[in-house]
């Protein structure tokens, strides 16, 4: 008998063997009658030391149980199965994936258009911060700075992640992957952005009509 194996058997009997080794030894123990005999004698030794011999210390009871169990069908525990998804859920899963992809694409296009379109953000920022534009007097700003009908939200100046020229080059280079309509919309938006920037020097923008109206509104 292998001494290391017997040492493991003794430790397993005391529940002092690591789980991985227990698994391997349990397999061997269940197949090796001699090993189970030794295991049973370890139990008898312990019972004797504790003086809990019972009517008998031999393996007669174990033999009787073994005979009775041999006539029983083998027990097999049902494995824990993962909960299956309903049929409708499985049916709609691919459609849902397509819908999500389409939504993401649409959001990306709208974001690009929004980023590249000319916005009067600078005018709004000026109204909010009270910075005088070109051609405005300090007196007129006293009226602009005291609106009572609404609060102009604070505008965070945005920067385009990609410069318009590079973005246009990218769109043209990858035109085969985008639909014609989207490509045209994107390019026209970029062109408008470019022309707006080039045609209107910084600081020359007039306040929009809306802002003027608000500024002139009765107190």
């Amino acid at each position, binding site marked *: 008998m292998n001494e290391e194996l017997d040492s493991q058997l*003794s430790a397993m009997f005391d529940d002092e063997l690591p*789980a991985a080794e227990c698994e391997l030894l*349990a397999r061997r123990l269940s197949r090796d009658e001699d090993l189970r005999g030794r295991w*049973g004698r370890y139990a*008898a030794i312990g019972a004797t030391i504790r003086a809990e*011999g*019972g009517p008998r*210390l031999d393996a007669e009871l174990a033999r009787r149980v073994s005979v009775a*169990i041999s006539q029983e069908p083998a027990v097999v*525990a049902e494995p824990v199965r993962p909960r299956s998804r309903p049929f409708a859920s499985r049916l709609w899963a691919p459609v849902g994936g397509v819908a999500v992809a389409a939504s993401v694409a649409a959001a990306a296009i709208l974001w690009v258009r929004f980023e590249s379109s000319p916005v009067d953000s600078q005018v709004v920022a000026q109204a909010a911060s009270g910075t005088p534009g070109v051609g405005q007097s300090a007196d007129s700003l006293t009226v602009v700075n005291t609106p009572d009908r609404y609060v102009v939200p604070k505008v965070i100046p945005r920067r385009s992640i990609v410069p318009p020229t590079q973005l246009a080059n990218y769109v043209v280079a990858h035109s085969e992957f985008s639909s014609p309509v989207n490509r045209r919309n994107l390019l026209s938006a970029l062109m408008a952005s470019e022309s707006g920037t080039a045609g209107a020097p910084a600081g020359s923008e007039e306040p929009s009509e809306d802002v003027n109206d608000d500024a002139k509104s009765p107190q």
Partner: protein
Amino acid sequence: MSADVSDLSLVRRVQSGDKGAFDALVRKYQHKLVKLVMRYVRNPAEAEDIAQEAFIKAYRALPQFRGDSAFYTWLYRIAINTAKNAVVSRDRSPIEYNIDRNNDATEESYDMQGRMKDSETPEGLVLTDEIRRTVNAAIEALPEDLKTAIVLRELDGLSYEEIAAAMDCPVGTVRSRIFRAREAIDRRLREVFEGGLGRTEDLG
């Protein structure tokens, strides 16, 4: 070391259809279970019958065992219920045998042995006495460090780590000492189990 790992590994094998693993569990716990049942019935042969029934019930119920409690705790409940049902169905009252766990174990064992000897067959007594004498003689012959280790483990139920602390030695040494003690005892006991009755005096 987490408790009940070895039992659980055997239980999992039984649950996958391996009956040999259940035999290992029966061999490990048969003495404990018979002793437990004898709190309810006087006749040792009847206690063995009830313990056998409890083991078979446990085997049939094992597919439902999830390991939420220790295997022996689960088996203990089955045995208690089986014993109570047996007592009721045979219209008997359980004997007044309340074991106070704080009492001296030796006193308890003498009482148990006295009850057993009332109804045990002579042949069964001879074999059991032979086993007992063999084990006791082998323990007495052990070197002191081996004897201390096996007694602390089996009688006091200490873990290897606790024994290592008590004996001021590494856990690996404790494991080795307990194994060597068992091997020394088993070498003698094997002859009794294999039909070598009456050799105890020669070996002692």
